């Protein structure tokens, strides 16, 4: 009798248990019978819908880049390759005429026209739509109005005919075409504007891949299939990409080790020391369009005038960049040779004056003493190196640099730690630096100008050291007015040579991306922005 009651209890328990889980037992629909050449790749969950102008983080960017076809795309070295652009031309670098190739369609069959671009850009710029990448349109005429007065359209954009539109900018920009490969400049089909939120969940696109039906399973995976109608340089070499969403990189790395994942585009910090051994012959470490610099502000007295000039050079030569890269970053950076980055069209590693970046402690000490002869370094002055310490590795590398400065120059130098990035920016923003500070730049699009204008132009937004040089500004302007990208690059590199004389900042190293892949795939290459070029990966 009593036994029976216990049995009944067990029965009830198991019945309830079954009911609880029954709803989840099935669900073996999509991935099971996938074709062999579908590449699985690590990703993080996109933060926004898959709309080009609202996506500005890596997780969404990896997907959006493959879904859409714009006017241009970038090859592995940051060079432009034509997608839909027939021509992008201008007489004065202010008004640009864009002609697109006829005949391209979105996956719902509607044609890609000049209007598809203009509508998408207008949508992206209008602040009412709250698009993260809206600042990419700020040099187009009418941007201010579309932000303040509620205007829906940029007055600088005009549709001429089915395949032509014009863009009027606020000022000359020789590198305007170079911007156009960035995802913010992609076209959108008409259906998108009916309900943008729903569109972002299941976009109708024109890129090398399209989203599979019900392809975005949130926090689980994003399934992309090749777009049969795509014509362009990024024709898929595989049968599709399935992005698996991970919460942490270490798990993804273990999957990679056992060939359960094909491509991991970012290494967890914990394996930086050993991934090259673990993944012998199937890893890459490549510089991308970002760098780290040491800012020497113009307003600090000891760094002004002739003595200041000598001190800037002395500090540069007293830093052994390679040693820090090897010891602090396990070799995952590349020594800087100029002020931009090596994956940019027009990059040159032997600019005049670049020898100042080479490690030479004897010469450094000599220069420092020479400066002291002109105007002595105050006896008890400590050279402070201001940096936020919430970013990975900042504290470690700056302590290493100050240590080298102490040894090689015989001065006092130390880290001036700020707890958060915001706190550091406040000090920099109000010209409050007493010594030098940390800075870094990540390009939005692969152009030399993007590394120079916003950082060293007089009065520019990110000009931390308040550098100002008429000569340099004039060279930049010449570059922006140049008739071709080659001419412009030449001018921008001349501008860099001026920087090498003045040294407003000391370039330290280029950022690099680390990637690994399984034994099942080949032809993995990293692009200018450190993302793998997924379309060219082959499997099997």
């Amino acid at each position: 009798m009593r036994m029976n009651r216990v049995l009944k209890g067990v029965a009830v328990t198991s019945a309830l248990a079954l009911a609880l889980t029954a709803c989840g037992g099935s669900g073996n629909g999509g991935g099971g019978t996938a074709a062999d050449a579908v590449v699985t790749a690590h990703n993080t969950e996109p933060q926004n819908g898959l709309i080009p102008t609202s996506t500005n983080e890596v997780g969404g960017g990896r997907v959006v880049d493959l879904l859409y076809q714009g006017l241009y795309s970038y090859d592995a070295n940051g060079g432009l390759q034509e997608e839909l652009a027939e021509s992008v031309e201008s007489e004065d670098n202010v008004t640009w005429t864009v002609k697109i190739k006829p005949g391209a369609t979105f996956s719902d069959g509607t044609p890609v026209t000049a209007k598809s671009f203009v509508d998408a850009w207008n949508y992206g710029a209008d602040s009412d739509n709250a698009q993260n990448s809206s600042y990419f349109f700020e040099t187009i005429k009418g941007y201010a109005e579309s932000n303040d007065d509620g205007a829906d359209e940029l007055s600088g954009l005009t549709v001429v005919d089915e395949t032509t539109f014009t863009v009027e900018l606020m000022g000359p920009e020789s590198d305007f075409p170079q911007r156009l490969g960035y995802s913010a400049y992609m076209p959108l089909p008409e259906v998108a504007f009916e309900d943008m939120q729903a569109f972002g969940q299941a976009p109708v696109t024109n890129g090398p891949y399209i989203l599979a039906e019900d392809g975005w399973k949130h926090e689980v995976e994003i399934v992309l299939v090749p777009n049969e109608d795509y014509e362009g340089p990024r024709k898929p070499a595989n049968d599709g990409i399935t992005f698996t969403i991970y919460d942490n990189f270490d798990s993804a790395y273990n999957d990679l080790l056992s060939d359960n994942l094909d491509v991991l585009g970012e290494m967890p910090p914990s394996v930086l020391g050993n991934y090259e051994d673990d993944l012998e012959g199937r890893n890459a470490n490549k510089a991308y369009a970002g760098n780290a610099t040491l800012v020497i502000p113009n307003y600090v007295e000891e760094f002004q005038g002739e003595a200041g000039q000598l001190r800037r050079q002395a500090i540069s030569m007293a830093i052994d960049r390679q040693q820090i890269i090897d010891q602090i970053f396990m070799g995952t950076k590349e020594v800087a040779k100029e002020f931009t980055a090596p994956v940019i069209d027009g990059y040159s590693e032997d600019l005049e004056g670049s020898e100042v970046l080479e490690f030479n402690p004897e010469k450094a000490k000599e220069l420092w003493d020479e400066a002291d002869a002109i105007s002595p370094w105050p006896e008890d002055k400590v050279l402070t190196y201001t940096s936020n310490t919430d970013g990975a590795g900042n504290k470690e590398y700056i302590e290493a640099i100050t240590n080298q400065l102490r040894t090689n120059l015989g001065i006092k130098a130390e880290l001036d730690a700020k707890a958060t990035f915001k706190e550091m920016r406040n000090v920099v923003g109000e010209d409050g630096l007493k010594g030098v500070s940390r800075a870094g730049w990540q390009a939005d699009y692969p152009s030399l100008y993007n590394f120079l204008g916003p950082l060293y132009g007089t009065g520019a937004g990110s000009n931390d050291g308040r550098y100002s040089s008429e000569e340099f500004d004039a060279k930049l302007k010449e570059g922006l007015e140049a008739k071709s990208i080659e001419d412009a690059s030449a001018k921008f590199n001349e501008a860099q040579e001026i920087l090498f004389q003045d040294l407003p900042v000391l370039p330290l190293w280029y950022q690099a991306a680390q990637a690994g892949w399984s034994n099942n795939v080949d032809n993995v290459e990293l692009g200018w922005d450190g993302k793998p070029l997924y379309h060219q990966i082959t499997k099997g």
Partner: protein
Amino acid sequence: MVPVFFGATLLVYFLVFATGDPIAALSGGKPMSDAVEASLRAQYNLDQPFWVQYGLYLKNLITFDLGTTFSGQAVNDVIARAMPVTARLALMALVFEAVFGVIFGVFAGLRKGGIFDSTVLVLSLVVISVPTFVLGFVFQFVFGVKFAWTTPTVGSQAGWSDLVLPAIVLGLVSLAYVIRLSRTSIAENLSADYVRTASAKGLTRTRVVVVHVMRNSLIPVVTFLGADLGMLMGGAIVTEGVFNVPGIGSVLFDAIKKGESPTVVAVVSVMVLVFVVANLFVDLLYALLDPRIRYA
């Protein structure tokens, strides 16, 4: 249950609200114009005072609309997809810890102070003292990468067989507690008067242990297991992260990172419900195990 529910949602909503502004995270650290920021705030009602935000949330909740995530999907769908996976994982862990916990506990309790008892004691202390994520990564590396008995992470299907390793890791810490609990309780009850009486009546040792001792000793264990079901769902955040299980834990973790209050509150509300139901269930089981407990 109603006050528990309102209290929990209000508290959680307030905590998420207090941890700060999700706008900074949304912009991805890039510059954002004031106009864009203002319209983003309006879109997610972030420009409203707290009570208005909470009121709007409750209004939607009553109509079973849990809101949308920042990426634009219905929270209802997110939970409907993730919940069964987590339920399956938690249930497997629960069965694992209940079965092995009681078996080991009983044997250790019957031979108190013996070799088996001491070994189990040491092992369970080790398991209790090592954090779950360490256990998770060690198991993942050993069984997933080195021996390749299973894949290191769970696939998008997350079927029963995929979840064996994560369930073991998830249940391991509780397993140790169940062993300690049933061992102590068995050892204690063995010296109770009614056991002596039963033996004096001439019952076999097996019958005494299985029917009398075990039944009485399991009451604290069942209480623990009931409360543990809720813990397993919450503790799944770590395990799900390590094994990339597409369950409620990873949804919650991601939502907390982004400051996505509708998702966080909805998930926590569901967990509160699970807790409440599990406890109710435990109360009912008491009656079966101990005839002295009766409900009016």
